[in-house]
């Protein structure tokens, strides 16, 4: 297996300047999505079709540490064994040799089953392309030997890019350092979660303090889809899933048979 390349995101260095968020928009040519301010610096509560990454701002207070303001850059985790890829009826998802989970908009029919299947609900529907979208780990940049836009712009050094094995070693050393220097609950996230993700986080506290699932789980439905439905997608879906939570998906899939996606004329 080729060596995996990924981002290491060390929250202990992050100042939440959000340069990464905008560099992502610039690199991926994404329009702004305006939402009103609701009392938290993180205007968007979640990623959306035109916003592949957001910053979470989470406040905590306890008698020992006092106030802590935790920042978390949030985007696709590029799972080593991605659910989105397993469930996509059009095989729009692929994995690059170095570990990016890639989504091909040309194949996508916008059914959004990947969104339901993703343990983090990352892929999001985008109206103007009628597809789902998500972080690409800036594959076109990485293929040219560049860093992803977010890591490239990060002023504080919180985001770095490199070989996953090396970054994991760095992360382990960093966690050790942090545990000895005021952050006894510091931990790595993404090393073992979901069998490993191709985004590595160094957290200064337990994952729940960053609104991360402590033990993320794959949806129980996934295997049904993966093993039974997808192979027979062309004709079995209406029977298997009519009326279920994923009926939207099937509707899209059927619609796809008749619309112009396959002709490539959709704008």
């Amino acid at each position, binding site marked *: 297996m080729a060596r995996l390349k990924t981002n290491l995101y060390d929250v202990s260095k992050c100042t939440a300047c959000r340069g990464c968020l*905008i560099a992502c928009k610039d690199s991926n040519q994404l329009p702004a999505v305006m939402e009103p301010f609701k009392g938290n610096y993180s205007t968007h509560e979640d990623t959306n079709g035109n916003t592949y990454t957001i910053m979470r701002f989470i406040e905590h207070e306890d008698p020992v540490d006092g106030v802590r303001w935790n920042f978390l850059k949030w985007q696709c985790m590029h799972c080593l064994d991605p659910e989105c890829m397993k469930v996509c009826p059009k095989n729009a998802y692929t994995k690059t040799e170095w570990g990016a989970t890639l989504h091909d908009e040309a194949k996508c029919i916008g059914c959004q089953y990947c969104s339901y299947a993703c343990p983090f609900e990352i892929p999001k529907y985008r109206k103007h392309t009628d597809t789902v979208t998500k972080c690409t780990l800036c594959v076109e940049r990485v293929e040219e030997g560049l860093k992803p836009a977010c890591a490239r712009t990060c002023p504080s050094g919180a985001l770095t890019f490199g070989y996953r094995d090396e970054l994991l070693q760095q992360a382990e050393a960093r966690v050790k350092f942090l545990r000895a220097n005021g952050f006894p609950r510091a931990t790595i996230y993404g090393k073992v979660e979901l069998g490993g993700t191709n985004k590595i986080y160094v957290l200064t506290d337990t994952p729940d303090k960053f609104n991360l699932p402590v033990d993320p789980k794959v949806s129980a439905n996934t295997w049904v889809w993966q093993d039974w439905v997808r192979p027979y997608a062309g004709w079995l879906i209406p029977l298997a899933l009519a009326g279920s939570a994923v009926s939207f998906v099937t509707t899209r899939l059927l619609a796809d048979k008749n619309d112009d996606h396959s002709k490539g004329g959709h704008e």
Partner: protein
Amino acid sequence: MNCKITRRQLFKGGGVAVASLSMAAGLGFDLQATASAVKELRIKNVKGIPTVCPYCGSGCGLLVYSERDASGKFIKLLSVEGDPDNPINQGKACAKGSSMFNLREIYDPETGKQMINPKRVQKPMYRAPGSEKWEEKEWDWMLDKIAEKVKDTRDSSFIHKEKIADGSEIIVNRTEKIASIGGSPLDNEECYVLTKMMRSLGVVYLETQARLCHSPSVGGLAPSFGRGVMTNHMIDMRNTDCALVMGSNIAENHPMGMKWLLHARENRGAKIIAVDPRYTRTAAVADLYAPMRSGTDIAFLGGMVKYIIDNGLYLKDYVVNYTNAAMLIKDEYDFKDGLFVGYNSEKRSYDTTNWDYKYDASGTIAKDETLQDPHCVFQLMKKHYSRYDIDTVCRITGTPKNKYLEVLKTFCATGAANKTGTICYAMGITQHTVGSQNIRAFAVVQLLLGNIGRAGGGINALRGENNVQGATDMALLYHYIPGYISSPTSSAANKDLLSFVKAVTPGAAKLPATTMDEFRNAVKAGIPYSGWKVNTSKWVVSLLKAWYGDAAHKDNGFAYDYLPKRTATKDYSHMPMFEAMYKGEIDGLFVNGTNPVVGGPDANKEQEALTKLKWAVVIDLWLHETADFWTYQAWERPTKNDNVKTLSPKDINTEVFFLPAAAVYEKEGTAASTGRWVQFRWKGADPVGESKADLWIYNELEKRIKKLYATSTRVEDEPITKLTWNYDEHPGAEEPDVLKVANELCGFNVADGKPVEGFAKLADDGSTACGCWVYCGATTWKDGKFLYKTQLRQKEDPSGLGLYPNWSWAWPMNRRIVYNRCSVQPDGVTPWPGDEKRRLVWWDPTKPADATKPDVLGTWAGVDVPDFIKGNGPASPAFKDPFIMLPEGKGVLFASSKGAMKEGPFPEHYEPWESPLEPIINKQSMNPATKVIQPDKHGKSDKYPIIATTFRLVEHWQTGALTRNLPWLAELMPNMFVELSEELAREKGIENGQNTIISTPRGDIEAIACVTKRWKPFILDGRTVHQIGMPWQFGFKGYATGDPANRLTPIVGDANTMIPEYKAWLCDIRRA
């Protein structure tokens, strides 16, 4: 770009990627499929064009990538990202820097299609008196009309001669009916032609954003060290052992500074301390956070001075040799009940005669190097701060005692010889009625700890505008002319050139010289206690030669009469300017890239003042709040308040001329970063529509004004008719040549027009011309060509300290860390013990200082350019005087009458104008030297019990004009909000996300509540007091909107510089 093209490219790109992926066969992935999803990199094989970020003063480099046709013609932007070669940011960019694409182009939210940012104005716009709308106009029509307005207003209000106090009449050449504000986002060359144009018209109401952000930096740093500048520079923060971030939210407002502090922490174990009323993004990553009530910095720092002295933590050799600690002060000096000797309570000012040194019979300042004499500065200082014990300080500041002690212990450890500590500050320090003294308090602390003039040390004034340093250097401020020389006043002491140079050269006022020749000889012979400023006459005459060319000659005092003379006792700064405007005393206003309807204090009043103008010229990229002050929208308010007028367009007769300006990367020029690095920015894109560079605008306007006066023979029009103005690329050219401006600005020899190689070579005999002496040395003649050193992009750093001597150019004379003589011990050679690596300069007795005199050995050398007179060796009496710009040559602990501060020689704590507290440490409440302008709008704590402050966000910049019009930034911070503690929210029944109304006597605003654990109530003198904070960057225009916080802030200023007290005032808050 549409999807079709994308998909075609996608396949094309796919083919290339597949080939490179052939190694990966057998992975179990469908590589063909992978490759087809990979888009082609848009910026592949595209050369990025370097520019410098237009937001904060860090000076980050950015690369502009664009699509061009075969002939090189610009088509559209592709991307803008950090410049990896620029050593300041190394390719990094914060939210603002990363959003630069949006400054010109955006992606449509509905279709994703790339388009010009619709908020950019593409044609000149005119608003007629009483009109409800803008009309598009042609440039020629606009510029001709403005030139006529300028002429009419000037001619009808011009004061050519004036009677002065002694009954004589002098030439003053000024008009008080035209005013100009702004300029700090412009390039240096633009600021320079603006200052020159305005002064030639006789404008004395001339102000820039510096007044509202860092005027106290000059007001506090210049009297302490000689120059009002950031002592070190951005990258140098990586050399520090400890950073005290106080009055700055560096992680948000100067993210590249934070980058280097984090670098210091990671690589040398530096500690980062955040002192702020609010737990900020800086506090979140700091090692130590201490809350402090707004407006109590001097109490906080006064306690630090006491702690340093009581515990013997000062660097003794440094203090004795490099500061005025050992100097003796007159016996008459006294301090009682919060007042220094010489106070006049009626005038609210001091007679500073007794804040002076004692001199011995030979005229030298008396000293006691044992620091024991009760009249020496050290002992007086010790006595002064003896009242600032930890308990008293914490009663005032509300800082928990354990946190305060931890700060003291951590930062004062940098007094060790092998340690340096830096102080980083911004508006949290400056925007107070004691702003300049806040900075003086930093100076006292840093001089005691031996942290000035050393790598990793310093007082780092973090400038908030990309070229506010340059705009200040170019003197877009009324009280001095370019290069920090006091501007001439209507007085006997400034009546002609000779009187003027005597008045502005330290120690020269009483010279018997009656001619310039005699004066020159006296200067040559030496004037005691004059420092490097002994050369001022050379800077003045060279400036006049630059402005008036052949018309400035020996026989007419080098056309000194042409300079406008302001009234000495009158204040023309921002607040008095708007007061005058409000009273209808000003007819015409130029608004150059600034937005006082959002940014001015008591913004309701400033907005109303604009309605009293006859005409206004607004130059900007967008129709911001100040351009649109006459619209219906501008007068909407959440509640009715008797102090706030409601007007509509038909009531407002101001004629408004809006001139669309080019964005930063649509033109060329230089900007001086906060660390004084003057960097060139190249043009990376064409201006949008018909927008034009400010340089083009001023050039065209002045040409038209000159044309209107061309036939005049009146002597009072000579300042215009004789003004040199030759910036066109070639005669008849449409575009001005930025390098022509640079040559004049940086100085040339009159004989051959070639650059003067440094300000030491400037002369006062008319042989040199130089628009701003501090920039002299930035240009040179190399290999038969003109070289503007600001364009240098060499990345080597032989010092290993991040000085990068050949990356751009730093004023003065490419010195990267000023006062660097202090980086070695008094002997000039030995580094401070244990600090060999941070030695910047040293005395080298083996080499000559002057290549033309090879047998005179001994010179200053080093890894930085020595901030010292090269040949001043151990034999020179000034050998241990590192502060060459100061008369006494020593760092100033006690500000004597030589460079008097308005409120006293030592910083003393006074409460803000609006305070919930009775004085604790003395008997004065507010700064006794500050004058109150609007007593009727004073908020008292019974009605307004909550302390309020304003702050900035990383996602927005200043008044927001340059960020709220950018969708990507508006998206991240879309609305005005107010931060308050959970305790106060409970008390007031306010929930997170709800709308609130905040009230003061100046007005009311609406803001969304951000209820947070990051604010805590203060316990002050035993009682609980709440403080809230809000960003001041919102207004009614742009994609992100909200009420301007400055509709609440008071009109009251710092006694020295009249910066408004934006940062500490009283209010009340309720649910909307």
